[in-house]
């Protein structure tokens, strides 16, 4: 377990403060926040790479606040991987073993273990600059994991990847966590990632923690409009994908059936962008496969646009223009229809 007590970190522009967190052993913990919220610095502070102004850090009850980074047993993987460019993938992975004076007869088995785990034995003799983004990410993970850290810190590990690779890498991370049961602290600005991977999430805003909880809790019961804004900008659902009678695929979420376009079966996540949902007072005649009636439970004013929460249930967040809101007189309590295409739903 990692405990952060009253951390205060100087970020130059502002100060990260009152950081109190308990990350349980084996937990996949997400630090969520906008760019510049101090997420990376917080990771570096945990790793001993950034000085603290105040506060204490404990790992498994042992205080490590003043311990050197090389003695903490904390691994870090940066967004742009930071593979040593002058070394092959193998030398990158061996680096930590040599630095920690790993017995010679253990070196090769440990490299074999970690590269098989990440399915990258074929990359060992490649130079970092010849690798794709996903391959670099795996090499960097292997380099961190081979030293058997008690905590793995991931700094935006998926952000620099293209969408396809990102999706695969997200699965790999989930799988890795399931198999190794290692404590992971993962920094991101993407709520979808938090929802898909995190056991719990802490939302960071302007230098302090706004809310801690399971991704679902945070999304359902945001503690502030900032958190709501961050978590509700996307409709994320979990459900079971199955073959429907009409040859299409449906996903049951909280009792309603959504038509989706996917090859996936079984447990999936769905994401629907608020701007892809049409709002109307009467049912629409259209080719869109999904139409439900619900009640407006919340209207969040963002100036020229508004986020309207429609409870079917579940809750859907829809983006409408001010003009539309005025024309349809969309207020809390109004019964409306929401309509969206099957292809608008992101399945992951």
């Amino acid at each position: 377990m990692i405990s952060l007590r009253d951390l205060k970190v100087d970020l130059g522009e502002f100060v990260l403060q009152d950081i109190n967190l308990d990350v349980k052993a084996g937990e996949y913990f997400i630090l969520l926040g906008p760019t510049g919220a101090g997420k990376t610095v917080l990771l570096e502070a945990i790793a001993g790479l950034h000085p603290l102004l105040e506060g204490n850090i404990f790992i498994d009850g042992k205080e490590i606040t003043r311990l050197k980074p090389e003695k903490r047993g904390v691994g870090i993987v940066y967004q742009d991987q930071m593979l040593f460019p002058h070394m092959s993938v193998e030398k990158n992975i061996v680096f930590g073993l040599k630095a920690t004076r790993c017995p010679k007869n253990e070196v090769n088995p440990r490299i074999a273990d970690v590269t098989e785990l990440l399915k990258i034995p074929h990359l060992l003799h490649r130079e970092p600059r010849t690798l794709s983004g996903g391959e670099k990410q795996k090499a960097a993970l292997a380099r961190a994991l081979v030293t058997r850290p008690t905590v793995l810190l991931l700094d935006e590990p998926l952000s620099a990847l293209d969408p396809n690779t990102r999706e695969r890498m997200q699965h790999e991370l989930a799988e890795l966590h399931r198999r190794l049961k290692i404590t992971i602290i993962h920094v991101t600005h993407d709520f979808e990632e938090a929802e898909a991977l995190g056991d719990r999430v802490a939302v960071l805003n302007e230098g302090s923690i706004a809310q801690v909880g399971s991704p679902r809790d945070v999304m359902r019961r945001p503690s502030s409009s900032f958190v709501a804004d961050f978590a509700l900008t996307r409709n994320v659902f979990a459900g079971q994908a199955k073959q429907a009678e009409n040859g299409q695929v449906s996903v049951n979420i909280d009792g309603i059936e959504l038509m989706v376009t996917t090859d996936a079966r079984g447990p999936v996540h769905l994401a629907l962008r608020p701007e892809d949902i049409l709002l109307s007072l009467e049912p629409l005649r259209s080719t869109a496969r999904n139409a439900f009636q619900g009640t407006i439970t919340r209207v969040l004013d963002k100036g020229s646009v508004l986020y309207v929460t429609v409870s079917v249930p579940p809750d859907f967040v829809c983006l409408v223009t001010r003009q539309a809101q005025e024309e349809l007189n969309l207020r809390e309590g109004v019964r409306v229809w929401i309509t969206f295409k099957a292809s608008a739903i992101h399945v992951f």
Partner: protein
Amino acid sequence: MHRVRSWVRPDALSFVFLFLALIMLVFILTPIIKTCVSSSPGTLWDTLLEEDVYLSIMVTAWAGLIATFCGLLFGVPLAYLLARHNFRGKRLLESLIDVPIVIPHSAAGIALLFVFGRQQIFGQFFDDIDIRFVDTLAGVVIAMMFVSVPFLIDSARDGFKSVDVRLEKVARTLGASPWRTFLRVSLPLAWRNILSGSIMMWARAISEFGAVIILAYHIPFLGGHPMAAPVLVYYRFNNFGLDAARPVAVLVILISLIAFVVLRTLTTREQKT
């Protein structure tokens, strides 16, 4: 013949710039080439065999080498600190480090004499361990180092700056001590800059005249008393005229040229990777 690319009519600017650029090239290249071809290889060889000359070239190259090694030992740590830390007055300090490049080198020599002279602050200290700086190899070394080490420091600093600090951070989390991190990560990655800075420093050191002549005219070296090569060129010209100075000048130019070609090869190779 097939026309490979269509011919675009050059504009007025291209003509004017080409004309001005040619004048500059002629100005730079003519003296170098004319001097180099003016002495026959035989004359050059005979000149090289003169004791005054070969000892002079050797002592100059050797002193330049020692200066460069001292520059590496003390300059690289300075460069690393400058690349990795921010503090008040850093800009000023960086400008001060470059001052030896911009001041007249005879003045630099006087400034050095003012602290390394036997009665002076550093001079007294080194006198106790039997190192003196007037008319000695040590004098040539400090004169060369003073005026040329900024090239090494600047180049090494830029090299370390180009190494992402997060590479060092990762190395630390992998269990490497600060020393190991420096030796295995930062230094190898900044090495090309340090190497090209060293070559630049050495080339600049062996061509130093002003500061060297103030500190050391005759240098006791391998049983003889040669002068530093640039000083020898001046001495021959002053005492025996243009024709006597020329072969020595050619040799000095050729050696500097070789050093520069090596430097350019290294920096272009750096760009490819």
